[in-house]
């Protein structure tokens, strides 16, 4: 993880993450970015839960392009609010979107077109004087839509259940904007529960959401999305979201939280150890509810 972030994520980069919405948030990568003290980042995502809040409060972030920034457990993201309202720890530029428009911006980049038209947002303030959304005419004479300009992240960071060493990634459950972001981004970091032999990937090609030639780094990090859930591997852990919500209410409280859960943790293994074995085991999914197999014989 350390090398992947060191090589792939640079100061000033635009990073897409939290793309499956509330699940599969790559917290291990987020915390490594904070430890490596990246600066002037742009964060891109639909709703980011507390990952964006942590990156903002830790001072890594200059700009956010998103539909929602907060903490799903508590509503407000206090780090985001301090940055937006009081420029603490630094000034934050916010580009507000809806989930649909941030998705269309990524999809336009994924398709290699300059923009995509939409009817969402008309009559509201998100699309008014927006740097990336403008009214256009329908060249075929229909009602006038809005154009959402393409948005190409430098890096997408995506947590999946399994990938092979080439970065061919199997993902199931919530997808959100995961696929669009991987196709749009210049580089894609895959973090996964397990690295598997490539014949497992080839046994079910429809489940390969990200083909390996788009992946620029693949890292095995079991539990790398905790406290968010990963289908078939981890339940959502509620308490850390509430704990963060309470402690991040003040800048000092955030610093103490940051030291305990990020700065004093060399890596994700240490984080899991700090959680305690009982807590980790309580979240681990042990039941099996397997999909019916699909016959790929020629």
């Amino acid at each position, binding site marked *: 993880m350390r090398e992947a972030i060191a090589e792939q994520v640079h100061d000033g980069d635009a990073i897409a993450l939290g793309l499956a919405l509330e699940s599969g948030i790559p917290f291990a990568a987020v915390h490594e970015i904070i430890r490596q003290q990246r600066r002037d980042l742009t964060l891109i995502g639909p709703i980011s839960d507390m990952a964006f809040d942590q990156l903002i409060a830790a001072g890594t972030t200059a700009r956010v392009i998103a539909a929602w920034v907060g903490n799903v457990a508590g509503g407000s*993201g206090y780090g985001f609010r301090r940055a937006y309202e009081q420029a603490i720890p630094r000034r934050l530029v916010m580009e507000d979107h809806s989930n649909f428009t941030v998705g269309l911006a990524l999809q336009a980049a994924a398709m290699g077109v300059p923009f995509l038209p939409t009817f969402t947002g008309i009559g509201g303030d998100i699309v008014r004087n927006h740097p990336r959304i403008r009214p256009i005419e329908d060249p075929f004479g229909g009602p006038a839509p809005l154009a959402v300009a393409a948005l190409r992240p430098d890096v997408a960071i995506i947590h999946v259940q399994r990938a092979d060493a080439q970065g061919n990634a199997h993902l199931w459950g919530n997808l959100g904007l995961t696929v*669009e972001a991987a196709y749009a981004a210049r580089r894609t970091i895959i973090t996964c529960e397990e690295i598997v032999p490539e014949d497992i990937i080839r046994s079910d090609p429809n489940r390969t959401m990200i083909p390996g030639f788009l992946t620029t780094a693949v890292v095995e990090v079991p539990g790398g999305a905790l406290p968010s859930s990963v289908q078939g591997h981890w339940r959502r852990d509620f308490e850390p979201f509430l704990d963060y919500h309470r402690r991040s209410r003040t800048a000092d409280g955030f610093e103490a939280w940051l030291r305990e859960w990020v700065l004093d943790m060399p890596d994700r293994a240490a984080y899991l150890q700090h959680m305690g074995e009982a807590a980790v085991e309580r979240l681990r999914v042990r039941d099996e509810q397997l999909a019916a197999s699909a016959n790929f014989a020629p």
Partner: protein
Amino acid sequence: MTAGYTRRELMVVAAAREIHDREVVFVGMRLPLLGFGLARATHAPNAVGLFENGVIRDRPAEAFIYTMGDPPNITGAIACLGLLDVMSLLQQGRVDVGFIGGAEIDPLGNLNTTRTSGSGSLVRLPGSGGGCDIASLAGRTVLIMEHEPRRFRPHVDYITSPGHFPGRRRGGPSTLITTLGVFDLSPTGVRVRTLHPGVTAEQVRQATGFPLDVSDAVQATPPPSTDELAHIRRADSEGFWTRRESPANPLRTMTAG
């Protein structure tokens, strides 16, 4: 608790009654999620639910879910698509009704969840999420709000989710369900449909930050039936969303409005 049910259980029932059989519903979390489950179990057995993360379900999750991304919401789903797939269905006009909440509302049903200076200093709110998309594109929208004067404003500071405006292509807010009553929304403004049992016209006037025509003669919101209550309590067994006091509910002190 009033008369054996909570105000929030009454709101769930009111939400369920907004869903008709065979409709395609853009479901939110919290009370609308329970309302969808209740509608399916009672008068709308063929309703289909879409979630903005791409999940399509025709029955509620079998275990408690706190977010739409929680694993029980995937298990037994009809489909797990992408966000753009369900947003495309919405834009195409194939979603009959969507549910959204807001921090502030004005008489035209414009919702603000982005930023407000209503209390004097600037407060940044989380933003739209999918709210703006549902408000813009669903066949009709049902809004769910806490009924407080600071939330009901003549004009909102920022229109995150557009309400009624001239030239709207489709839809718009049709119903507002609050902690005090159920209201009709139209391009001409807000009208009281029912007040929750025990709520007076004066209480509603006081709690609404813009002029509202309401008389004491207005009908009461029909209370939940025994069957409806039983269903809600199965779905929200710890009373988390509906705020039943239960020692087994570890999160009961949280604001889950």
